[in-house]
């Protein structure tokens, strides 16, 4: 086993490196010791190596292969298993994105490793075993877990917005690898990709999130949520009840089955505050809720709240925010 700490870069549909990659690189450097290296997998991604070096990567293992596209796990599993087998890193980390949730479990199986998903803290024991913290029990409990140190790579994914990204130049030596991925390795045929063109930040990365619940009562009324989000430079989210009712698309769902978010500000509009919704946003720094029911459970879990009808509260609130933001 080498002492290398690997961080697998997460690349967005538009080819940019996702912010969580820089967060994980930075925290690995601060907390884990050992040379921090990056792994860059994708198609036409080689030019991103220098960005990773800018956050402290000493080495960057690059597999640039046309079969590594389209969010298709098969090629990534083969490439990463191959690299881990060849170089035996001590630790392999990545952001906890939907894509990491898709392919990391297979990588762990493939190389016989333990895998901790969606960690909110990372560190090392004195004898060099990875120690992490993560939520469990619908995010109502936090467990501290340690790897047993059996010599297999210790693999973990990290929740976006858990750590601060911090630039720091690393040596950035590029190691190009040929993972030998061929068309035959790709079992899933992608027929169509629908990504949303939006000027709003992505939910999981956003520093501020404005979400709407069933109380919005229509798709049209969700414009109130979008307007408030845009005013705050926030991402827009929703509850499952709002998604189920067809007021907004599924990719806006925050919660146990939707996205886990950790913004500095979470504004919950007409959301009751179920365990499952809280599971996805409970770690927000400041929670503000607007609800017309004084008994709504969300109030007990909020920092600030206005008990009132959203349709009456949002217009003056928007005006006040505009004033405050222009000062």
């Amino acid at each position: 086993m080498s002492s290398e700490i690997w961080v697998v870069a997460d690349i967005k549909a538009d080819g940019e490196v996702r912010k969580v990659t820089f967060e994980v690189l930075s925290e690995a450097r601060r907390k884990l010791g050992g040379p921090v290296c990056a792994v860059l997998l994708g198609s036409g991604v080689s030019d991103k190596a220098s960005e990773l070096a800018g956050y402290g990567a000493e080495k960057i293992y690059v597999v640039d292969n046309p079969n590594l596209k389209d969010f298709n796990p098969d090629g990534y599993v083969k490439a990463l298993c191959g690299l881990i087998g060849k170089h035996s890193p001590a630790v392999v980390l990545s952001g906890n994105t939907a894509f990491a949730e898709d392919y990391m479990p297979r990588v762990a199986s493939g190389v016989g490793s333990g895998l901790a998903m969606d960690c909110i803290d990372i560190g090392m024991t004195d004898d060099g075993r990875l120690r992490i913290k993560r939520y469990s029990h619908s995010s109502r409990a936090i467990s501290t877990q340690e790897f047993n140190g059996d010599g297999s790579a210790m693999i973990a994914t990290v929740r976006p917005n858990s750590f601060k990204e911090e630039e720091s130049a690393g040596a950035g030596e590029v190691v190009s690898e040929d993972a030998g991925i061929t068309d035959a390795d790709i079992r899933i045929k992608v027929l169509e990709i629908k990504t949303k063109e939006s000027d709003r930040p992505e939910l999981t990365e956003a520093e501020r999130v404005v979400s709407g619940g069933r109380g919005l009562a229509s798709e049209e009324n969700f414009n109130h949520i979008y307007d408030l989000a845009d005013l705050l430079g926030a991402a827009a989210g929703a509850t499952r009840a709002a998604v189920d009712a067809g007021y907004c698309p599924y990719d806006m769902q925050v919660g146990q089955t939707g996205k886990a978010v950790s913004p500095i500000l979470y504004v919950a509009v007409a959301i009751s505050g179920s365990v499952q919704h809280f599971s996805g946003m409970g770690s927000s720094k400041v929670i503000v809720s607007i609800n017309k029911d004084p008994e709504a459970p969300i109030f007990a879990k909020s920092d600030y709240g206005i008990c009132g009808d959203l349709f009456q509260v949002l217009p003056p609130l928007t005006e006040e925010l505009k004033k405050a933001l222009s000062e």
Partner: protein
Amino acid sequence: MKIVVFITQTQDTEARIKVGSSGDSIDTEGMKWIMNPYDEFAVEEAIKTKEAYGGEVVLIAAGPQRASQALLQGLAMGADSAVHISDEALGETVDSLVLSKLVASELGKIEGVDLIFTGMKIIDEESVQVGIQIAEELGIAHLALVSKVIDVKPDEKKLVCQKEIDGGSVSVEVSLPALITCPDAMNEPRYASVPNIMKAKRKPMKMVSLDDVDFGSLGINRDAVGKSGAKIKTVNLEVPEVERKLKIIKGSDETTVKGDEIAESARELVKLLRDDAKVI
């Protein structure tokens, strides 16, 4: 179509939970155990597929004796038969790789499986991996977070699904056999009625003891089943009380804001967010 669904029981995390005396797990004294909610979606999807294309649904669970309750519920929902790998050690934390090898080996004994459903995660330990790892053990493709099964083509042995990705969705086609992990948005699980639960008791349930398992061929040690054999060990568990001091801004009648109070509350909230919380 021969369809297999992997299900398990979880602690009801909506109920009150507290840390047990060992400090590394939830106190299960008097705990209500339920079928993992995501596995209910998996069972529902399997039964819907069977109803549309014919065939049979087999459930597989590894767990202590109480796990038979979840299997019974699945049978009452409409599955045809069940396999219960039963051992009290399976009630502890079990290493994901050990678990996936164990349950996949039972699937290996069933011939001609076309389609496999699992939940996306269990709601107590939230390991979020066993389903996908079963696919790796079986050497077949998996589709994670499928929000909609668009088309099943039993004759061509193909399947078209919509799955969720970061920032959007994709539609994909895959050859069968394949494994699908289910989030909640895909269907509305049917209710297991009392008469159906009575009937379910007469459906075939195969019991497998760990003594029957050929651990050698799985490449694992029998001792690996249970807490001590896990690659990742919980050393501490906390159930933090949500510590938020609500500054609620409400009207004089102690309920909702009305009239002039509304603008006043809005002003006060913005001031607090700026000067107190410093988030805008």
